């Protein structure tokens, strides 16, 4: 192939050597653009989880007796809303998350796959323990404290793992908050624990989404 065969110059970046400050600006601009293109979906994932937790746990709180004092919805409907939101959030996360590292192969692809698998393993374990507890005689009041707390613990720890993998302070803060929310929510008793999950958990996801969006559009360097 000969040089410059299908250059759409001059619009394309061409060979003219830039000055030192232009060159440094070009490097920074390009690395910011790469970061935006690769991580641009992450705030959306966090935003979807903010909605799933905020609206989902609010629905559950409104479904239980002694929950929402302003209005109530049948528990079956609340459970369906909650389930649909969580499943929707999982699907969106899997689809958007898989696009983050697309086209890249190597050590980081392995890390990404382990991260993805950890969500399934963690959620599966919480579910299995829940079944065992129910079989051992735990009533529905106890289980309505256990499940949100168990999933919070898993989510919190996986965000902490993500923070370690990608050296992300955003994920570190989010992981700690989610884990702590999981720890304190059961102390409020059922059904108020759902309100705690909705406000503090959903709120943490929302703030994380906004912070990440802001840092991506500004650039970290």
């Amino acid at each position, binding site marked *: 192939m000969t040089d410059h065969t*299908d250059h759409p110059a001059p619009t394309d970046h061409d060979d003219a050597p830039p000055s030192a*400050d232009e060159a440094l600006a070009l*490097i920074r601009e*390009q690395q910011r653009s790469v970061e935006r293109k690769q991580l641009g979906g992450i705030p959306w994932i966090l935003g979807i989880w903010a909605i799933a937790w905020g609206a989902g746990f609010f629905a559950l709180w409104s479904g239980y007796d002694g929950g929402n004092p302003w209005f109530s919805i049948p528990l079956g409907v609340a459970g369906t809303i909650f389930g649909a939101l969580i499943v929707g959030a999982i699907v969106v996360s899997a689809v958007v998350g898989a696009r983050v590292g697309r086209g890249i192969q190597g050590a980081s692809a392995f890390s990404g796959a382990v991260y993805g698998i950890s969500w399934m393993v963690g959620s599966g374990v919480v579910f299995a323990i829940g079944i065992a507890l129910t079989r051992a005689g735990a009533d529905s009041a106890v289980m309505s404290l256990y499940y949100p707390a168990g999933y919070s613990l898993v989510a919190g720890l996986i965000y902490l793992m993500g923070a370690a993998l990608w050296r992300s302070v955003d994920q570190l803060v989010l992981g700690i908050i989610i884990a702590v929310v999981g720890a304190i929510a059961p102390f409020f008793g059922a059904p108020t624990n759902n309100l705690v999950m909705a406000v503090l958990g959903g709120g943490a996801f929302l703030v994380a989404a906004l912070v990440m969006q802001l840092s991506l559009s500004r650039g970290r360097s």
Partner: protein
Amino acid sequence: MTELDPVIHAAARLRISATLASLDEGDRITFPRLQELLDMTAGNLSTHMRKLEDAEYVVVEKTHQGRTPTTYVSLTRRGRRAFEDYTETLRDLLGEKP
């Protein structure tokens, strides 16, 4: 004055090197994804890739994923070092370093 590496010191190759350097060491990227991240035409990217390859700054590997041929690109150790030296020289020139 310190010399800037002429292999990297061209807008297109500088952007290519910056993009490849942002990958973790040991990672490689498919040619089409690299093209997307750079917003460059395939022909333009190939031309500049050839120059980086000649200097042994990048390695281009052609493999198959199932029946689809896939081309992976990564920075060599030499290329990563050259890019780091290059940016350090730029910062020196601009007085950004202590």
